[in-house]
């Protein structure tokens, strides 16, 4: 099945991911790409607590994600790949050889410098530009917090 959902979500592993998406997608593994979490056993234990035992959780650095993306896509199970920000995806996409065709913006919350684009999407102008650049490479970008919501096309929120 490979990775069926590439998601930007600053909460990383949480209810919407595990239950909202994980159930209908029948996820067998979740890849969490984050250098800080990858370096901390304590953080990893914390994120594992929210995941039922039948779903494997893989913690990867950005560098590891670049190298292992092909292997994850050859996995017979359905997978979800998560990162907390757009920069991480921009870094991975460079080496993805077309493996990433869609990116879901699932939750990017308010910070100084960001403005509201959707109820659950706040972006700086720089982040919005990065999304446009990813779209220009042929990647479909949509915002959708849960599967039952409408997938909002990029041009409607940047």
């Amino acid at each position, binding site marked *: 099945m490979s990775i069926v959902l590439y998601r930007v979500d600053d909460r990383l*592993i*949480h*209810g919407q991911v*595990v239950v909202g998406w994980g159930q209908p997608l029948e996820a067998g593994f979740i890849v969490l790409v984050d250098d800080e979490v990858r370096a901390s056993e*304590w953080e990893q234990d914390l994120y594992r607590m*929210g995941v039922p035992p039948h779903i494997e959780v893989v913690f990867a650095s950005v560098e590891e994600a670049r190298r292992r993306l092909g292997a994850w896509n050859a996995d017979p199970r359905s997978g979800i790949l998560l990162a907390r920000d757009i920069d991480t995806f921009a870094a991975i996409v460079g080496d993805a050889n077309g493996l990433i065709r869609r990116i879901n913006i699932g939750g990017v919350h308010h910070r100084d410098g960001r403005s509201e684009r959707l109820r659950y999407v706040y972006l700086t102008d720089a982040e919005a530009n990065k999304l446009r650049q990813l779209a220009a490479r042929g990647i479909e970008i949509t915002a959708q917090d849960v599967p039952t919501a409408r997938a909002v096309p990029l041009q409607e929120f940047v």
Partner: protein
Amino acid sequence: MSEPLRGIVVSHSAVAQSLVAAVAAIAGVEDALLPVSNEGCDERALADRLTAAIGGKPAVLFVDLPGGSCLTGAVRYARGKVDLAVVTGVNLAMLLDFVFHRDVTPAEAARRAAEAGARAIRTPAA
């Protein structure tokens, strides 16, 4: 302990508000619990809400799910702080027990609350 512990109920959406209101309605105790929702929060914003609710005093954080952003935020916030303890799987029964047993340490209150909450989960014959 000079001042009884406070409980901070941390939840998705308005679950916390409703639980706190229900405790007040049932027990008549209105100063023991405060609700915190994660609505619209990333981790930093949730930490800000926890800081405001806790107010630097000893407390037990009652979290709705044993996983997810409320728990990760609460555990990360409470890490290394002896005057805070975390319980997951909050239910009305554990809160009702807690509000009448607050003259103990946060760790003791959390342990007792967890036991009270677990005892309330049953499958009675209908």
